[in-house]
């Protein structure tokens, strides 16, 4: 594809947010936005779909809960019942209070770790991956918006300047 991209750099999140809204109103297509921190309301302004990570977290929690129940049942009741404080050691239900902390921790452990792993896979992140952000300062104090050029280039440039962009540069749309 011989498409062109404009990289517009902003230095304030509120300015960026209103610029995103303005461009989307003018039917321009925004490819991506790089920010040093999560900007409140940006996902909504960009029209991104809601994340389904929460659903996976719930499922992982249920998985962790089941694994913990099975594990503790096998360890403490089936395989090696022990007399701890004179508690009935052959019944899962009568020992339940002692198992609740383990079950709770395993649920949290599974939900948290598997959710993070899912997030990395879904965002195509792995160790030693070279960064995707066009300029390093988007990890510091700058906000960068990639707009796909459509129609009159100067008009778009003017518009971006008017929205408060501090720096504009033209690039080729390389990926995909």
């Amino acid at each position, binding site marked *: 594809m011989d498409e062109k991209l404009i990289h517009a750099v902003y230095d304030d999140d509120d300015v960026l947010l209103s610029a995103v809204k303005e461009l989307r109103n003018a039917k321009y297509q925004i490819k991506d936005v790089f920010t040093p921190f999560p900007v409140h309301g940006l996902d909504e302004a960009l029209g991104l779909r809601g994340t389904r990570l929460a659903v996976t977290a719930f499922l992982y929690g249920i998985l962790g809960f089941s694994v913990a129940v099975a594990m503790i049942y096998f360890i403490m009741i089936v395989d090696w019942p022990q007399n701890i*404080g004179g508690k009935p050691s052959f019944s899962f239900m009568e020992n339940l209070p002692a198992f609740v902390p383990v079950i709770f921790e395993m649920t949290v452990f599974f939900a948290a770790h598997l959710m993070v792993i899912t997030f990395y896979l879904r965002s195509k992140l792995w160790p030693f991956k070279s960064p995707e952000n066009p300029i390093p300062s988007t990890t510091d104090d700058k906000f960068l918006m990639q707009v796909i050029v459509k129609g009159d280039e100067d008009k778009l440039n003017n518009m971006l300047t008017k929205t408060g962009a501090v720096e504009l540069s033209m690039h080729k749309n390389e990926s995909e």
Partner: protein
Amino acid sequence: MFNFNKKLKIFSLVLILLGSIGVGIGFLSSPSNVDEALAMVSSSHDSNHDNYNEVHNNALDYHQEKPHDDEHHYDHGKHVKHQLQNRPWASIFVAAFFFFMIAMGTLAFYAIQRASQAGWPILLYRVMEGITGYLLPGSILLFLFLLVSGLHMNHIYVWMDPETVAHDEIIQGKVSYLNIPFFMLRALIYLTGWNLYRYLSRRLSIAQDNAEKGNIKNYKLNFKISAGFLAFFFVTESMMAWDWIMSIDPHWFSTLFGWYVLASSLVTSVTVIAITTIFLKSKGYLPKVNDSHIHDLAKFMFGLSIFWTYLWFSQYMLIWYSNIPEEVTYFLTRIDDYQLPFFGMIILNFVLPLLILISSEYKRSNWIIVMAGIIIIIGHYIDIFNMIMPGTVGDQWFIGVPELSAFTLFLGLYLYFVFNSLSKVPLEASGDPYIVESKKFIY
């Protein structure tokens, strides 16, 4: 400004009337004629005792199987008589404390928002102030109840009975703290302090609305007294929980009991704030409150439900595991005699709120919040019931006319005072310096 119309007024007055009638019936149907009941129990033994049991649901089978001498029998009958006499009193106490706790928790929640200078809840300040409008009447009623107990008109607190203390070495060791004058003095200090803060903060909040633009003196002063109040509150709230509730079982103690009561109080209060807000919105008030505000309240409902469970379980597991007789009796009474409310409450207060409110979309849906809220309110009412009833009524409990009508009576009083205080001032704290942030609030 909220319009406390005739329909609502009549509704709350009808609740008060119905509740009062029911409470009256509760007192009449308990063995309130003390002499007769005493004579019935003490003059003869088995025959009357049996009649007595039949009247009261044969709840004493366990005791009958035991052989016992006359004196024991007499003591036992007296004990049962006290328990039955306690029933209407204890049910009043449960209801009085529950609705007081809503106002108290709301006040604490409100003070936290003030002291942290939070931006989002400012549109809800007047709702919270409306709910704390019940604090003063609730405090007076509760104080009267404690006073009546202190005058030996009921047997809610066994340590108040000098005869019991004379035979009880454990209570004797606590007499320097658990004595009636000091108990009343402490109650007076807590209630005065909380009501004073409520009065001052409400006045400053209204004064801020009328102040000229840019003058935030009232706001700053309110911030300072809120921070001071919180330091006072978290100490006195803990002591209040020991005094009013934990001392019902004077042999037993739990160091986290104050926080446990606080968690119950906060989760109920936030739920009530959410339901009141949704109610007011449905009537066309609070137009600026959006679903992000509701979402935040629902997050608090969800989080505090789990916090409550954490404290409940921490208390339960340690006592269950160590299995020390003087500690474990507390839970044995509850598991033996109160199995359904005791374990049912875990489902109402933990499992259902957890599953219903876990999704962030559900936290923004009004009818789901109202449903979950009703579950939480019932659950925490049962929680208070479980705190107070086993030590006062023992195995003679039943959810009948006295319990339901005490709830009705105090619900009526609560609604009357809350609606009344909501109708006094505009529902938007327009002078607050952060009001714009609250209006623009999006999650």
